[in-house]
């Protein structure tokens, strides 16, 4: 039996080495970097000290950006939930033959560069953009409405990027619901809406929570929408990292901020798994 023990590991080794090389090693680099010192001349000096972390938590400035990141992430989750459930439910109930085409259309934006898609909102929301142009042309407004460079426009950019993830997650879990459950509920006296509340909504929770987690994590780590569509007040933690690493070449401090973000996300994912009990939801579905 001894000989068999290494077999699963041998079979797993390609996948494990990919994960190790592409994920674990870079993260380790970042963690190591976060303890280094940056000399006044700009050179990085290998060291083991917590100065970078101390700097982050020294005053309210950096933590406030972290808090804002969390708030914006939650907002984007909430918006994606509401805006994503509707099309996902429509796909689920639709009996059109073109269902797969419709779902493919959801993926279509991914074929266009994220930067281009984000930039295009400037042409829509900007002072001389589409909306303001027509609002002024039809005399509804005399001055352009300032719709850009605020949290609203950042959220707009985030939603158009993240919505497909949410829709697909919800759709997959809806599609897994046995339609005879709805018929059973209806036959026992539920209206369409009551059956939705009793059956569809609770049984789509796994998709809702998976989609929410994905959207949250992606929002917390994104820097393009706040950079392109946000103002100085809308900076998120990833923008901070970007500026430190690319702008001032301060790798040690940038790495420390990254590790803080990573730690925060790990805590959130762990809590989520523990208290939202995804496993429990899946377990209850196994009977089907």
């Amino acid at each position, binding site marked *: 039996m001894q000989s068999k023990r290494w077999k699963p590991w041998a079979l797993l080794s390609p996948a494990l080495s990919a994960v190790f090389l592409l994920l674990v090693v870079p993260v380790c680099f970042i963690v190591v970097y976060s303890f280094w010192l940056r000399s006044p001349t700009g050179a990085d000096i290998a060291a083991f000290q917590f100065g970078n972390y101390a700097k982050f938590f020294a005053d309210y400035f950096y933590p406030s950006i972290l808090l804002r990141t969390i708030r914006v992430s939650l907002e984007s989750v909430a918006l994606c939930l509401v805006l994503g459930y509707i099309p996902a439910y429509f796909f689920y109930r639709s009996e059109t033959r073109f269902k797969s085409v419709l779902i493919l259309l959801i993926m279509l934006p991914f074929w266009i560069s994220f930067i281009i898609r984000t930039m295009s909102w400037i042409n829509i929301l900007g002072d001389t953009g589409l909306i303001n142009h027509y609002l002024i042309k039809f005399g509804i407004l005399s001055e352009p409405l300032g719709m850009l460079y605020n949290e609203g426009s950042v959220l707009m950019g985030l939603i158009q990027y993240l919505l497909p993830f949410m829709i697909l997650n919800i759709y997959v879990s809806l599609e897994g619901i*046995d339609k*005879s*459950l709805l*018929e*059973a*509920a*209806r*036959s*026992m*006296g*539920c*209206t369409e809406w*009551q059956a939705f509340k*009793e*059956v569809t909504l*609770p*049984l789509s929770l796994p998709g809702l929570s998976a989609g929410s987690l994905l959207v949250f994590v992606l929002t917390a780590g994104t820097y393009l929408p706040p950079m392109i569509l946000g103002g100085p007040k809308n900076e998120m933690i990833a923008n901070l990292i970007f500026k430190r690493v690319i702008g001032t070449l301060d790798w040690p401090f940038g790495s420390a901020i990254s590790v803080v973000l990573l730690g925060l996300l790990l805590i959130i994912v762990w809590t989520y798994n523990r208290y939202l009990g995804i496993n429990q*939801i899946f*377990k*209850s*579905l*196994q*009977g*089907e």
Partner: protein
Amino acid sequence: MENKSTSPAVQLKGVYKRFGKVVAVQKMDLDFEEGSLVTLLGPSGCGKTTILRMIAGLEAPTEGEIYIKGKRVNDIPIHKRNLGMIFQNYALFPHKTIFDNVAFGLKYRNVAKGEMQAKVTKALEMVRLPGVEGRMPSQLSGGQQQRIAMARAIVIEPDVLLMDEPLSALDENLREEMRREIDNLQQMLGVTTLFVTHDQREALSMSDKIVVMKDGLKQQEGSPEEVYNYPRNHFVSDFLGHSNFFGGVIAGLEDEGVSVKLQDGNEFRVEHPGDWANNAAVELVIRAQKFELTYLDEAPPEPDMNTFDGTIKDRSYMGGEVSYFVELESGTMVHVIGIAKLTPFKKGEKIRLHVAPRHCGLLQKDKAGGDARPAK
């Protein structure tokens, strides 16, 4: 109960259902007596499930009327019809406890807490699964889940119980047990029940009335004995049990029946009360179980039988019975099912085949649709 005789529990009048160009159900007239168990029997795609779904309110009939307890329900939505439905895959709510599953219908009937508790307990006792209130459906076996589904359907005291192939997801032994249980429960409660199945054994064993369907059309309607023993046409006699069909013509009229000459030249005496004209084209129907086989040197089991010699071409032993394929001297193949004796006939053995004239049935030839004469 007082107006029991006035209107049937469920009634369909001239119901059609079309899905685009496909006609799923046509000119369907049905009456279900109060408290009876009616089975819709037919191959898949015959429209039996569509009828159930129309009675449930999950589909609207394209034409015709549906009445439940004398009330026209065409425009009444499903949730106001007071039905109990049982599905092939049980359709228990996986995220709710057994109690919440069974109490579901009561909740939407505004039943008070205490009463709800009592009713659920009683329903679970009726399906012989007391004490499982706190469990989740996934913790129960398939048979148990189907019982919970039963409890959930009967707890609301429905006007009609609709069962869509409720046993087909269960394995053979369990199916038999559940079938008896459904039968007992239905009789105990006296609830009018529609049972949809493609399994003739289920249909024959538990129904008060069987409706045999094919291509959306009712083929025959009657008690299990009637439908089995007097199939009205080729389809029904083929679908229920194993029948042999032989084409032939009426070759002579006798006192107690007719003599039929088959295409292979063999002549059968058929005891049949119908009016038949000489030379009329007919189809001779003989059930595989009605034949008797003997060795060539044995005396026939009873006098005056149709007797032919043949050879066993194939045989499958099934424990309780044996299925033989016998080639007659004329070359015709006959399917025979006999009770297995200790030493069944062997392949290649020469045997003699007997069938009594009263066990031979006749159908008018070339009338697939319906109006064949009863075959005995």
